[in-house]
């Protein structure tokens, strides 16, 4: 097991290097470069001055040299400065990342809490009206565009009923402390977390249904019934424990869609997270932030995949890697 984890960790390194090359090349091809941020507009027309600025920033070096120096700095934790705010990128990301993890984590919990019971009920009542309705609803849930659901919820709960705040993470008029502050953040989180978890919940309930159905057809379930175990024990103990294993993998593999969802949902609800930071950075052509957000997203995805595989091997003793 340890060897497997180490090997997987080592495999992740070339993966991240490959992604960093793609991102670096992309920014390289993009119009404009870092020198524009440092140019004094009064002297901006003097070619000699422009050349001096570029040289001082190392932009006259060949692309390979610049890539290596960027990579070294990144590994040392120096991500440069944001073009727009002039603050260190690490600070910008540090401010936003916890908010994204909070929103993503809550929506993940929400998805699991709803999807697993729905999947179990569907599987146990399979081919009945209940199963039919739940399965159809799940397909509808997958098909609705997240941003449209967001507009719908905004319209109903924030604008018409005025029950929930429409944007942001904190109330702008009041500052709360202690429990009231937590409650304030929770109120702001309800709508974005619902939107973020909708598609996830819908697709996971389908997976849970088919996972349980597959387990119920196994020999050991027949054995459990044959030796006289009560139905509740057969389902709750023998079947469910095995049917939950695939869900572990799904959580790890859902990281890309949570990351994608963050870009859309955070932008609509003004949630001060990494996704909104990324979209703002693109609109402002803030390349250091763009690169940092991309690399961080890739890192999250790779970690998610890795954790999914390791957790799977840990939970299912039949799987052995070497």
């Amino acid at each position, binding site marked *: 097991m340890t060897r497997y984890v180490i090997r997987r960790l080592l495999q992740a390194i070339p993966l991240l290097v490959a992604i960093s090359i793609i991102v670096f090349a992309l920014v390289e091809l993009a119009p404009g470069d870092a020198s524009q941020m440092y140019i004094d507009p009064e002297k901006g027309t003097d070619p000699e001055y422009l050349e001096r600025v570029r040289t001082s920033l190392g932009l006259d070096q060949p692309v390979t040299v610049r890539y290596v120096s960027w990579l070294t700095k990144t590994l040392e934790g120096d991500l440069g400065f944001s073009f727009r705010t002039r603050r260190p990128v690490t600070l910008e990301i540090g401010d936003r990342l916890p908010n994204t993890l909070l929103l993503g984590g809550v929506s993940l919990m929400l998805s699991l809490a709803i999807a697993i019971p729905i999947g179990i009920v569907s599987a146990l009542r399979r081919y009945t009206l209940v199963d039919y309705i739940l399965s159809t609803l799940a397909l509808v849930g997958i098909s609705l565009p997240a941003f449209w659901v967001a507009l719908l919820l905004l319209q109903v709960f924030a*604008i018409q009923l005025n029950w929930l705040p429409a944007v942001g993470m904190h109330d702008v008029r009041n500052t709360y402390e202690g429990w009231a502050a937590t409650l304030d953040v929770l109120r702001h989180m309800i709508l974005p977390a619902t939107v973020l978890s909708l598609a996830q919940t819908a697709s996971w309930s389908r997976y849970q249904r088919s996972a349980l159905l597959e387990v119920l057809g196994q020999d050991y379930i027949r054995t459990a019934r044959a030796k006289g175990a009560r139905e509740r024990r057969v389902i709750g103990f023998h079947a469910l424990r095995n049917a939950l294993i695939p869900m572990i993998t799904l959580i790890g593999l859902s990281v890309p869609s949570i990351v994608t969802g963050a870009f859309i949902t955070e932008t609509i609800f003004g949630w001060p997270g990494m996704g909104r930071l990324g*979209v703002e950075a693109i609109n402002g052509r803030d390349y250091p932030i763009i690169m940092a957000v991309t690399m961080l*997203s890739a890192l999250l995805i*790779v970690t998610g995949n890795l954790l999914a595989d390791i957790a799977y091997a840990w939970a299912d003793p039949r799987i052995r890697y070497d």
Partner: protein
Amino acid sequence: MTEYAAPLSLERQEPTPQWKLILRQFRRHRLAVISAILLAVMLVLAVFTDVLTPYDPNATNTAYAGGKPQPPSLEYALGTDNYGRDYLSRAMVGARVSLFVGVSAVVFEILIGVSIGAAAGYFGGWVDNVLMRFTDVFLSIPGFFLLLIISGVFEGTLLALIILIGALNWMTVARLIRAEFLSLKGREFVLAAHCIGVPGWRLITRHLLPNALAPIIVAATLSVPYAILTESALSFLGLGVPPPHASLGKMLEEAQQWLRSAWWMWVVPGVIISTIVLAFNFIGDGLRDAFDPQLRR
């Protein structure tokens, strides 16, 4: 004993063709059949959009609108936007763009996915290894953000958008085809073909690919919704389909500032996107059941 025997005819019986069995199973999925009909209608509408739109989708009627979106009326079935442009015509053009982008991106995606998956599965060994590591890289790329970057920083065209959506989503198809090829390669008919000297290229196109067709078709059908949702989400963030093309996502972006007063502006495009996506998902579901011989009776 004889009285229980099934009536046997000695005449030669024609086997039911495969596609008839598949069609029979597909027809059992009622929602899939309804979706297929709906989608067929939409495709016809999309092809003849230019003739069928009641108004020029870009023609403004500022006198009628008076700077505010106008609700549905006898004149304008789905109302107008704040420039007095007919919303029905715009929605039709938008739906056509969405369908076109979605389907073309998937065609491109299938081409890449099948080529890479087939090469990996057929050759195996180091070719397989290299191609699968390549696939891993793409699987770890935050695709949506990359699309945002590319369409935000570079001036995009419709063709570029299609190619990009395809180029960032072929990985599942490649893995699927690879697995399918690996299992087919060990089957007797493939070994037999190999033994009588069928060349590799022919083996792939004549023996392996046709047998892997079912999962390809299902994957393609279920990929279209993803491509359409990606395109509309990009357009919604102001970065997808470039002007002058109308797009359902872009209509929703414009509708954002009229959330309070003009319900039709955000209901119409949203319902159309959802319907198209749902139809493709139902059809994909139905096809998956239809291709599954275990479900066939």
